[in-house]
């Protein structure tokens, strides 16, 4: 188990990284060529909006005052108001978290369910057609642009065969489950499944490909170790050796990479949400950039950074539970 000191240290590190990243986000507003206000407001902004942003961002004050003010607002979870809708930024982001988390989890589930069996099969039947198939699949999977994969899936399953809807999210998983459990009506869940399937496959493909590749190579490494030979010599059944001992050992690095890849899903989600009109945080970011709604952009960025660091911290702490050897590394 991780010691208290290790946990504290990891949290301290996470907070330091968030602070530094938030500072980077703060400096982004100085990147704008010319008058910063021009780049930060919608194109048709009125003079009042301009005044408002100058006030809100304290642009008339010295930089250090702006910075301290910005940090104190963040500490109070005050991300300001959207220029476009006037709704608090935190409220808009909060409404978008559900869809993105749903999509991310669905992608991870699909990726793990496909990749580990495929990787194991491919390692156990080395140089068989399955192995070649898996190798080609994983090579293509890490090389395919995910937005294009999404469009191709729409083309085949929605446009050509008309099996699944092209885009959107008419119902969320919570509402769908409620309908099922309270009124025993599975239609909501079916609708949800049919809408999330293509985006989740699109988002999960890169991860699936990577983990397949990794599971295969780790398993092959592990199968070549001496203890496997000893067990075989002692007459242990092959299935027992493979599944109880070899697979377990070889999955530790696989879990590490799954953890690392979870953060990268945030990047993928931005594009996948755009392709499938999935109303998540990523789509909110792109829309906000397109209409130059700076408080929204800034809010989403900060939210994403915090999410990213949290995932990485949790993943790190999880390893310490899974593999006690990594626990206290100074």
């Amino acid at each position, binding site marked *: 188990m991780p010691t208290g000191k290790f946990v504290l240290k990891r949290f301290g590190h996470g907070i330091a990284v968030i602070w530094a990243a938030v500072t980077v986000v703060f400096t982004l507003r100085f*990147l704008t060529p010319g008058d910063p206000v021009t780049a930060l407001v919608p194109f048709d902004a009125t003079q009042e909006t301009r005044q408002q942003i100058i006030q809100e961002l304290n642009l008339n004050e010295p930089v250090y005052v702006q910075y301290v003010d910005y940090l104190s607002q963040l500490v109070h979870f005050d991300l300001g108001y959207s220029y476009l809708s006037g709704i608090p930024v935190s409220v808009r982001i909060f409404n978008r978290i559900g869809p993105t988390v749903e999509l991310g989890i669905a992608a991870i589930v699909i990726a793990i369910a496909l990749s580990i069996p495929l990787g194991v099969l491919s390692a156990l039947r080395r140089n068989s057609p399955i192995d070649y198939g898996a190798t080609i699949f994983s090579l293509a999977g890490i090389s395919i642009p995910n937005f294009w994969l999404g*469009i191709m899936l729409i083309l085949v399953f929605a446009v050509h065969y008309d099996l699944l809807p092209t885009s959107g999210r008419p119902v969320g998983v919570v509402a769908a489950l409620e309908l099922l459990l309270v009124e025993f009506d599975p239609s909501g869940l079916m609708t949800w499944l049919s809408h999330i399937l293509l985006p989740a496959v699109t988002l999960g493909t890169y991860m699936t490909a990577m983990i397949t590749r990794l599971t295969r190579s780790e398993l092959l490494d592990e199968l070549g170790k001496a203890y496997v030979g000893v067990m075989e010599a002692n007459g242990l059944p092959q299935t027992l050796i493979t599944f109880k001992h070899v697979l377990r050992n070889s999955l530790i690095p696989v879990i590490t990479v799954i953890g690392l890849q979870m953060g990268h899903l945030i990047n993928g989600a931005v594009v996948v949400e755009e392709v499938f009109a999935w109303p998540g945080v990523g789509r909110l970011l792109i829309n906000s950039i397109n209409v130059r709604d700076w408080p929204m952009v800034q809010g989403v960025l900060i939210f994403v950074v915090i999410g990213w660091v949290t995932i990485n911290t949790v993943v790190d702490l999880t390893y310490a539970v899974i593999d006690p050897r990594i626990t206290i590394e100074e």
Partner: protein
Amino acid sequence: MISDRTKRNLKRTLESSLLAKVGAAILIVMFLAALFAPVVAPHNPTQQVLEKKNQPPVGMNKSFTTSEFVVNGTETERVTNTTYKQGTWDRPLGADPLGRGIFSRLLYGARTSLLVGIIGSGLGAAIGAVVGLFSGYHGGKVDDLLMRSVDVALALPGLVLAITVIGIVGPLAITVPDPFVLFGLAPEMPPTFTIPGTVTIVIAIVSWEEFARLARGEGLSIRETDYIKAARSIGVSDTSIIRTHMIPNAITPILILWTLGIGRAILLESTLSFLGFSGTTLSWGYDIAVGREYLATSWWVATMPGIAIMLTVIGTNLVGDWLRDALDPNLDVESL
């Protein structure tokens, strides 16, 4: 510069691996396509021919049905028009909704992708290598500070950061004259070529950290070798040690990572241009965005550029694997 042993290793690995050959072949074709785009392209990729809009690829027929309402006296009548379009060799892969030849656009798109990929990733490699070697060589406080900044950079999700920076700064387009047109070899082609500058820089910004980590590791291990200690003890300056000893020693793993980085840079470039942030319209990602609106009638518009991207990235991945197997088999790229 390249030793005989290295050459032998490269050759031997290439001969024994089918995948390495496939990768090298793909990349060579793509390079040639990009380089000679103005001579190979059957058409100016920006020329719009509306009669040929959404024309299918060679060997395909496609009927397009359009209907409109026509007021006929007091009655409104619905008139349905069906037009047949047949693929022709002047637009071998079909045409987009503005009648621009997809094959020609792919050739020009290869230029954008490869240029941005190679330069962007190369810039990231250069920055990362300098930071990493410096950090590893000096150690102590400098090392701590630089590696903390790498941690922070890794804590920012690349694509999200890239979109935001371009969204704020705006696309900076660098326009250079096309030598083929300049010397009259391809008069009908676009006279200038646009490199999306912001995209290139942003790719460097989001990719340097990996190179810094790699180079730092190399720097740390080289620093402790006897010949570096000897060089230092006779008073060779730090810059000259880094330049003459450390860079040549660290160059191989950086080169391998760079090759693999080109593929990722191409994916990032196409994503950014798909989202409309790139500043050039001669890009595979942009063409996919155009074709996306016409999936129901003209699948080829969005499909062809995606195949081009996938092939190119597969090519860089295979060549990267080949270089790793031949030059530095223990390099663990995934864990950086």
